[in-house]
């Protein structure tokens, strides 16, 4: 059975995919994951997951069809409005 190993490089960091390995069961998979991703103390923690349990989601099922810029930073352009508001309040500085 194939197991995916996710590793946390240092405490508090996100878990990232390290690689995969073959093992008869979870007990063996854990032993092997420690070896492959921890024998040089290079991982703070590991998650070991049977490959079947991982569900992948990729393009194009994720992409937006209609524009949803209201929920992204680049969907907002405040420069012009800010300039107008400063001029009204008399607080705009000489540029």
């Amino acid at each position, binding site marked *: 059975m194939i197991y995916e190993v996710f590793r946390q490089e240092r405490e508090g960091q996100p878990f990232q995919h390290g690689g995969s390995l*073959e*093992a*008869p069961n979870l*007990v*063996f998979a854990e*032993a*092997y994951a*420690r*070896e492959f991703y921890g024998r040089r103390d290079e991982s703070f923690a590991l998650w070991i997951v049977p490959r079947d349990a991982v569900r992948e989601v990729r393009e194009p099922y994720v992409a937006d069809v209609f524009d949803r810029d209201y929920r992204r930073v680049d969907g907002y352009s405040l420069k012009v409005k800010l300039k107008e508001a400063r001029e009204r309040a008399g607080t705009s500085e000489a540029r």
Partner: protein
Amino acid sequence: MNAQELLRLADDELILGWRNSEWTGIAPFLEEDVAFSSIAQTEIGHARAWYELAAKELGSDADSLAFDREPEDYLCSPLVELRLADDWARTIARHWLYESADAIRIGALKASDDPDVAGLAEKIDREEAYHRMHAAMWEERLRGDARFREAVDELWPFALGVLSEAQRSLLCEAVDRDEVEAIEQGERNDLRPLWEEMTMVRRSVPGASW
């Protein structure tokens, strides 16, 4: 604890580590190859630590003790000398039996009144936890296999020979087997060729640094 007893421990770990390294590159599958190689390395690391303790008492150094004695002067148990390199069933049987015996031995050393010995036994015990897990994992998987059961039967008297007489009943309890006559001394038949190979580079330029 005297130097001879330290050498006994060191020799057991060195020779077993040497035997286990015979599997590096040819273990049954790649993941296990990497795991078993770590176990071999840890054993040699433990050997080195015991040799260093003995070296202090004997006014020598770890490498000289490990490699520059004659085969007759090694104090390892017959169990670790056996050449089992083509046979995974016997290799794992030895691994499981040795780890079970060693756990008892190390457990006793943790209570030693020599602080160096107790301290080192404590450190070794922590690393050995992983070896025991690995051995247990394989024992569980192979216990239904006739080959494995026969191997354990064959090696059982050798396993008893790793421990002192007083400790053997503890091993019987740990693995649920009856005590039999222990094999304590060997003819050194398997050790001699091992020693020839192990020391061939070192002997090629005596006294050199490598």
